[in-house]
Structures are given as C-alpha cells and as structure tokens.
C-alpha cells in the first residue's frame, strides 16, 4: 500500500477494486479525501463512494467531518450526477448523538437540491448565511 501522505488517484482507485470490502483501506481513502479537499489531488468519485460505503456498513468508524467533506467535494463536481448517487449511501442519521452531523448533512442536501434545480441565487444566499454564522461563532469564541 502506498504511503498515506502521498497516495495517488491510481493507487486509491486500484484499492477500491482489489479491496472493495476490506475495511483496512479506510485510512488510505480518508487520506486521499483530505488530499482532494486540500486541492492536492483530483477528485475521485470511486474513492469517495467507497469510503462512504464503508461508513454506511460500519457506523462505528463513521468520521462525520470526512463524510461531510466527501459530500461537499461531490457537490462541487457539478454537473455530474455523483452527488445524487452519494445521497443514497449517506442518509441523515436521526440519532440524537449525531444531531449536529445530521443538521449539517441536511444543509448540504438542501444545497444540492438548490444547485441541481438551478436555483443558484437562493443557494448563494444560503451559502452566504453559513459564512456569516461562521464568522459570528468565531468572534464569540
């Protein structure tokens, strides 16, 4: 397996094929996801889908920030239908223990709906509100 710090798209997509059901590849998939978020690697739908599938199969290893990052990455890959596919794998969890995660996931789902229906004006307005609330929370903390 390639080093986690420099895993390539080819490496990670090969893992998705050869170790489709081997959960030991989760750290590699997470490393690649974070590389993609940092714009250090191209987006890989296959790697993203496989990681979310593992989170779905094994809820105990669910990493909410990574799950949210994966959804945002696929949403930014507009206008492919990848985001729509992932919404069938990642379902909002009604568990009170993951309330914040569920709320944020619902926000992303809502953004996806707005973008995919071409309601960009509303989307940017809601996105702007999210940024304002972020700066408010940072100033209060």
């Amino acid at each position: 397996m390639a080093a986690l710090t420099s895993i390539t798209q080819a490496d990670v997509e090969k893992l998705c094929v050869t170790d489709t059901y081997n959960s030991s590849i989760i750290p590699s998939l997470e490393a690649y996801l974070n590389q993609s978020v940092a714009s250090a690697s191209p987006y890989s739908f296959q790697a993203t889908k496989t990681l979310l599938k593992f989170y779905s199969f094994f809820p105990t290893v669910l990493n909410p920030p990574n799950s949210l990052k994966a959804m945002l990455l696929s949403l930014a890959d507009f206008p492919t239908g990848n985001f729509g596919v992932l919404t069938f794998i990642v379902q909002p969890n009604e568990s009170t223990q993951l309330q914040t995660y569920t709320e944020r996931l619902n926000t992303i789902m809502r953004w996806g709906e707005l973008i995919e229906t071409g309601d960009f004006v509303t989307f940017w307005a809601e996105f702007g509100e999210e940024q304002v609330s972020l700066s408010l929370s940072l100033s209060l903390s």
Partner: protein
Amino acid sequence: MIKNNILNPTQPPPHPQPTTQLSDKSRGVDDLPLTTLFPGFASALRSSILQTLSLTFKKMPVAQFNKFLNVSGVDSAPKSDVVDGVEGDCVAFRPVAGVNDVRSKVENVGASFNLVSKVL
C-alpha cells in the same frame, strides 16, 4: 463436523474497531463548520458552473453570468480558459473543440441544459 468457512476457507478481514465515541463532540463536527471543512468549496463550485455554462452557451448576459457565479463582475470570476471575453453586455465563451453549434453542445451536456434553461 463441518468446519466453519468451508465454502470460503480464506479468513475474512476483521471488522474495524471504533476509535471514537458516538457523539458529535468527540468526532469533531462541532468544531468544524461546513465552510472550514472545505475552504475551496465555493471556488471549486464556481469553476464547475463556469465549465457547464461554457458548454451550453456561446454568449450570456453579464448580469446573468454573475448571478450564476455569485460574483460582482466577470473579472472576479475564477480564472478560467473558457471565457473568451466580454462583447457588449454579454460574456462570450470559447468554442468547445469539435463542437461547433449550440445545439450539439446542449446535447453533450443534456441534463445541464435542462437545469440552466429553467433559470433563463
């Protein structure tokens, strides 16, 4: 006695062990708002929208273009090689290689055209 795994003698991979407690706080969500999880999200999305617009249209009113990208002017759009320049009140997109007329472009992007046409 029939042995376990007689149909599949290879040892299955062990299930992953949880490394965190089942709560938002311990999993870092509370401390990471959406906009900080993926700081480049808006920029990446704008680039994707720009690519879609360039595949779908030859020209587009600047005001409409700015609405799609949520920018104040063409100059503030992300750097891209798909915009040819501004002609009058319209943004002109570069022709897509091998695709000459708007209709062909529309067919190439299919759903994207349906999506964009709802707004225009």
